[in-house]
Structures are given as C-alpha cells and as structure tokens.
C-alpha cells in the first residue's frame, strides 16, 4: 500500500541553499521550443538535487498559439504553477509573449530575458483600413528596458546565425538564462549535451557560451543609449479619421451577371441579386482594394477612394 508522498530527492543531494522555490517562466509561440528549454532546465535542477516541477499545457500549443512552461525548483515545491508576480526569471522566446506574461515577473528582483524576435499572428493583420499597421504589441525594447531593471533583450537568432547554426538560437537563450541562475556552467553543458543531437553538440555548446558571454557583457546603460531596434508594430493607421471611405459604383446596364467580382471580392461584400446584377451588400466591409473593378470583363464597376483618381 502507498504511503503519504514525501518530497523525493535524487541521491547525493548537496546542501540546499534556496529557502523558497525558485521560479522560471518560459514563454513563446507553438513550435519555438519552449518545452525543450524547460525540459533542459528541469533536468538540470533535478541533477543539482532539487525537487522540481515543470508544468505546461498541451493541446492548442503547436498550432501557433501561445505556449508557456512553468519550472519551479527548491527543497519542497508545492504548486506546479508560478503565482502571479513571483517569477524570478521570465524567459521569452518571442517579444509579444514576453509582454503577455510581464505581470508574472517578480518586481524589482525579477530578471526578464527576451528574444527580440517578433512573430506576427494572422489575427493581427485583420485591420483592413488603408495604411493600417498590425495589431502587434506596442511596447518597444526601450520602454521595457527603462521600466524593468533586470532586463535583457537579445537577438538570439542573429547570434546563432553568426555561428552558422540558426537552429541553435534556443541554446543561445539557455546561455543567457544561465547567468540568472546559480548553477555551474559545466552542469549546464552536460545537460545540454544530453538533449541535442550528438553531431550538433559542439555548435550548441558554442552557442551556449555565446549567449552566456552576451549576457555577462551586457551593459544596460550603453545598450539603452544605442538601441537600434525601435520597431513598434502596433496598431495605428496612418490615415486620418474619416478619410478612409471607398465607394463602389456599379453600372447596372453593363453587368451581365458573370459572378466574377462576387467570387473574387476578398471581403465578400458583393452579391448577385435576383436580376443577376451585382449589388453592394456590405459597404462597410469594402476596403477599396479595386479587385472588382480590375476583374470585371465589362467595366461595370468603378471604385472611388479618396486619394485615387479613377482611370
């Protein structure tokens, strides 16, 4: 029969130095390798003699959705998830995901490490007004570095590319992460070697060193002064309010009901009426893309937009 569960420790457990569980939250987008990174970390923690819990949610994850993994280690770990505001490290593989989980970061003492990579979901390209920007988050590297004391933003992919292995970007991030946790470098490397394909061990260890060196050599002040990457992709239209109207003019006598414009209108705002003549059904959806005008074999459609003179 089973007995009550005691915290399980690996053999040869060294004396523990952490009074409370240490919390690392790893976030990104499906397919980026969040789970792999957290497995490496969890294995390392276990080998260092800690109880460790690693929690993730599968399911929607690989279809481009947000993915996160909580890793907690210490003498005793109860909750598998990190309470809000208690992540000692927030490691983001994608910028907007880092922003999503920001409230989980421990204030003042928490470390934020983010890849500057931006993955813009199709959902963020839904604003069809002229001159629209994507609905991506507005926070730039600068705004975050100014407000979060221990913050690191790196181009892991770029660093990996310099080493000639794009695929080692996650190992670069592990190198950066290693500077925020007090484990021996050799222990990190030995665990990483177990997880990567044998023929790539060497480059991955180089990538780890590169990430680590980058973080150790990071100088916040000079970085803030020289930020090159000021991209903000967030939603704002360059068009003045009210100026973005478009109007589709249909010359009924010329329409022969071929249905081409109806089928090709990207916004599906045109319909064929009972008389087999095209009609504008959803004027507010029309973006003025002119597709109907160009495709009509009988020149029955003219699209009027503010800054475009009809041919």
């Amino acid at each position, binding site marked *: *029969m*089973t*007995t009550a*569960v005691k915290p*399980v*420790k*690996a*053999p040869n457990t060294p004396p523990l130095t952490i009074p409370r569980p240490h919390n690392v939250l790893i976030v990104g987008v499906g397919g980026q390798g969040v789970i792999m990174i957290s*497995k490496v970390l969890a294995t390392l923690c276990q080998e260092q003699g800690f*109880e*460790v*819990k690693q*929690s*993730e*949610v*599968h*399911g*929607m*994850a690989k*279809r*481009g*959705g947000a993915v996160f993994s909580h890793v907690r280690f210490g003498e005793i770990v*109860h*909750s*598998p*998830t990190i*309470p*809000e505001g208690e992540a000692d490290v927030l490691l983001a593989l994608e910028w*907007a*995901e880092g*922003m*999503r989980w*920001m409230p989980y*970061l421990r*204030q003042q003492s928490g470390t934020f490490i983010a890849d500057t990579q931006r993955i*813009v*979901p*199709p*959902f*963020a*390209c*839904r604003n*069809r007004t*002229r*001159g*629209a920007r994507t609905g*991506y*988050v507005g*926070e730039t590297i600068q705004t975050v570095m100014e407000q979060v004391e221990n913050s690191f933003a790196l181009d892991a992919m770029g660093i990996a590319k310099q080493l000639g292995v794009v695929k080692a970007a996650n190992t670069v991030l592990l190198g950066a992460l290693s500077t925020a946790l007090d484990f021996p470098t050799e222990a990190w490397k030995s665990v990483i070697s177990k997880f990567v394909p044998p023929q790539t061990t060497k480059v991955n260890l180089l990538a780890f060193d590169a990430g680590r060196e980058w973080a150790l050599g990071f100088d916040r002040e000079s970085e803030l002064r020289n930020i090159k990457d000021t991209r903000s992709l967030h939603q704002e239209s360059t068009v003045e309010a009210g100026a973005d109207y478009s109007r589709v003019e249909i010359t009924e006598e010329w329409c022969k009901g071929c249905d081409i414009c109806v*089928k*090709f209108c990207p*916004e599906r705002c045109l319909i064929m009426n009972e008389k087999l003549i095209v009609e504008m059904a959803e004027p507010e959806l029309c*973006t*003025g*893309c*002119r*597709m109907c005008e*160009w495709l009509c074999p009988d020149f029955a459609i003219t699209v009027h*937009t503010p*800054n475009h003179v009809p041919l």
Partner: protein
Amino acid sequence: MAKAGTAAFAPQGSKEGTNNNTDVASDVKPLMGNEAIARGVWEAGVRVASAYPGTPSTEILENVARFPEQDIKAEWATNEKVALDVAIGASFAGVRAFVAMKHVGLNVASDSLMSMTYIGVNGGLVLVVCDDPGIHSSQNEQDTRLLARLAMVPVLEPSDAQEALDFVKQGYDISEQFDTPVIVRSTTRLSHTRSLVRVGERVVPISKGFVDNITKNVMVPSHARIRHPRLIERERDLAEFFNSSDLNRWERGGTEYGIITCGISYSYVKEVASDASVLKLGASYPLAEALIREFCESVDRVLVIEELEPVIEETVRKLGFEVEGKSLFPRVGEFSPSVVREGLVSAGLLPVAKSTPGLSPEPLARPPVLCSGCPHTSSYMALRAINARVAGDIGCYTLAAIEPLKAIDTCVAMGSSIGNAVGMYKAGTENRPIVATIGDSTFIHAGIPPLIDAVYSRADITVLLLDNHTTAMTGGQDHAGTGVNLRGKQTERVDFEQLIHSLGVKWVRKVDSYNLGNLYKCLQDAVRHKGVSVIISDRPCVLDPVKIKGTSFTVRAESCVGCQSCMNLGCPALSWSGELYDGHNKVEINQLECMGCSLCAQVCPSDAIYLPTEE
C-alpha cells in the same frame, strides 16, 4: 507519438507475481502526470489497455504502449465507449484492464459504465478520466465526479505525479476488493506537470479466467434488481474503508480554520497556507464521513477548496456542518495559487497582499490557428465561396470558425455535425445549401450512425469528410482509417469510399484538398445533388505524423496589390511586408514557415505569388 520501442523509464520485461527489486534510490525519475499514470498501469500488472485520444489524457495510452507488447496489449479504440467495452471484456476474462479518456469521453462511455457498475469486476478495472478546468482544449468543463456519483463509482484524486502512479495501483486493489470499477480523476494541470516519481516493479496477479455467474454478468431486469442494493452497500463499505485509508490525509495545523481539499488544489493550498490544518482527500467519492466529521469538529471554521463543482462542499454541508466553499472560490475555471490566495483573503484568513502595479502591457491576441499548409484551409475557402450553412465538428478544423476563414456556423460534440445538418434540413428554414464538415477520426468516432440516419431519412445535405489521415488535434494519433496501430505497425484499414457507398450514399467523390478549383466545383455539384452527397477532401496533415514541407512560395512585391485575398486563408506564413500599394498592405511569405501548399498562389488574383524554382 508512441511507436514501437521501450521508454527510458520502462524496464525490459517483468515476471509474474514477483517483486524483488528494492533498490529504489535509483528509481526516481522525472515523469509527467500522464507518464506516471502509464507507469502505474504497467506496475499494477494490467494486461489490456484501451483509449480514444483526447487532451489532456492522450499521452497516457501512448506511454502505456511503450511497455513491451507481451506485458500489455494497448490499442486505440474507435471511441470511448468501445474503449471501455474492451476493458470490461478483459475484466470479464479475468485480467486487470485499463481505460483512459478525457472528461467528455466519459459521456460517450457512460452508457456502458452505468450498467457495468452493477456488474462489478472480475479482473480489476480502473478508468483514468482527465478533466479540463479552465477549458484549455475542450468543449466544456464538466466535473467527472458528478457522473461518478451517478454511477456510484469511487473516485481517487491524486495531487501530483507520484500519487498518480500510486493511486492507479491502489485503484486496482480497491476495484478487486470492493468489486467495483474505479475512476482516477486527473486534471490538465496534473496530467501535464512533470515531477520526480519513485517508481516500482511490475507485479501481475494470477488471472482467474472467466467466472461464470449469470446473475452478476448478465444485466437483465431481474438481475439488475438484485445488484442495485449491492451497489448501495458497496458505497457504504467504501466510505467506511476511506475513513481509515491512507488515501486521505489529515495534516494538523492551527484550529482557527481548516481546509478540506483534493487533487491539484491541495498543492495550491500548501503553497499559500502552508501552516493551515488540511484534510487532503485522496478519495473524493464516496466521502469518508467519520473522518470529515472529526476534522470539522477540530477546527472553528471549515473551508472546502475544490476545482469546479461543489461536490465535497455539499456533502459536508449535508453532514450538518457550516462550510464555505464556492462562496469564496469560483465554480468555473482553473485554480492557481493566486485564486486560492484571493479566496482566503476574502475569507479574512490571509492579509491583503500589497500590490504595486508594474508593467502590464495589453496582451496580443494569439489564438491557435490552422498550420501553414494545413489541408483543411481550402475546404473552408471553398465552402465560403458556395455560401453554405456549415455544421461543424470537433478537430483542428474547428479553428476555421474564427477569423479570417469564419466558415463554420455550429460545433457541439464529436460527431454532431451530420445529425445537426439533418435537423437543419428537416426544419426547412434554410435556403442555403447545408453542409456538415467532419474529420476522419471524428467520423469513425461518432459520424457513421448519423450518416446512416441522413440516408435513411433522405436528408438533402452534403457531408465534407476532411481526411487528413490522422487525429491531428490531439497530436497525430492513428485510427482505424489510417491502417497503422498504436505501436506503429500495419493493420487493417477502413476504406472510406467503400464504407460510405455501402451505407447507401449514392453520390461520393474524393478530391485533393490542395486543388481549390476542383474542390469548389465538386462542392457545387454535391449541393446540387438531391439527397445525401459526400465529398472526401483528401490530403495528409502537414504536421503529424511527419512534417511535410515543400518548397516555399514567394510574393513578387511589385505585382502584389494588397487585396488581402491570400490573407483570408489565415495561413500563419503570410503577413504584411510593411510596403503599401495604394494604402493597402502588401504581403510577404515567411520562407521557414511556408509549407508550399500553393493555396495562396491559387487565390491571388494578380499572380503575385510564385515558386522561385519556376522562375
């Protein structure tokens, strides 16, 4: 994907009736809750295991299948009821049997469960049912304990991976001792959390073989009348047993208040109120009433902290104690340390946490989407073009309900689409063509009876069978339509065309999902056909079981007029390039992401999308 082979944590082979390995120190392994359950199943000497995939339970059977075939026969069933029936059959035959499913799977299996609970077991039978509080990947968040109570089947609720393994093994002992099936209830969080687990050896009980006993094994009215009172006795005996069982644990603390909790909630309680008196219930049905009484009397105030329904709370209240539960802790959603803390704060038991607002950016909406190159995309593009009323079903393709495809009007439960379409047709209010869309795995699960119904009732509907050769939503499991079994070996394969013909459908056609024009024309023909028509849209999933990546397409920037036709596919490889044409965003293709399905090139009216190799 679990394929033939042995997991790192699976020792080779085992001996019947032996347990001689005591060197446990080296047997501590990091296991996910689901892996621990699988390990427990193997250690308990189970001989037959069955399941139908469903998040978060899927990895259980996949991991069971990593143990040697001579130890345990593990196979995907066509649905959860079949899975349970297979397990019941094995139990009849005298061996320990196992079945796993997600919470809604138990609805499908419940018909068998409600009667087999009268019969009891010969070989032990444990069902692991995984609930999904917070609805991470499901259609609802029903609480399995309510169904278990209806079936009068005991429920064990582990709090971590170690207990998951231990409770499964204990479940078999209880099953055989009390002649009952046993439910071990997991939740998403437990199933998908990895922690250290001390593993043991496999012990296989000697099989009793089939035991002839007609009044017990054959549920007809006269026999069921005899068995029902036995059930009530069994419930009482189990409650008595749980009073002293080590499944339930009393952790003594202060007397000001005490917390009764179970499952994963226990870990949150320990996180935020480590000194409190806690009664941790490993068995949440039937409840150990004497133990609970004693606990309630030992403290001034009793709180019940349980996810979802107030199952324990209501029972404790019936015992005559004033308890607080759902007044403080929500009845919906997943718990977390923060939720438990907030509840205890509003109960006045914890101080209000000081919070200084930090940086909290507006989060970016990033819903899951169909993969780049997903073969489902074109089917819904074509459906939009014929302006159909679309009854949807459950699978990856349900994602076509949201922007930008927005081509599914309903989604109820596995297999509902076809029946729903029949009903819409019968209502006679719809002047658009009525189309049901259903995946291959879902069709096998629950789509065949309603298709027969459609033929039988002469419904004028079209069924679009989305055959991507896998159960993609849950991670790419094989099924009867793929011809491959759980261990990756060849087996018999359902021929969909033949099957559908044989049901009496006169109009069946198969098309390549990547040929949008064909698909569209075929759909037009199908909806014109009076009666039931079936189109099989055929293309393998590009993600599972193997990634299928072709040459990437490219946008010729000078030809793109920013019309957004391609963006309407919702392919995640497409995004705005930053360039504008007449104020409209031009498009670019992420070369690493594009799978080369050619759909965007097919829809682009200005021929801006091309294969670089063809230039």
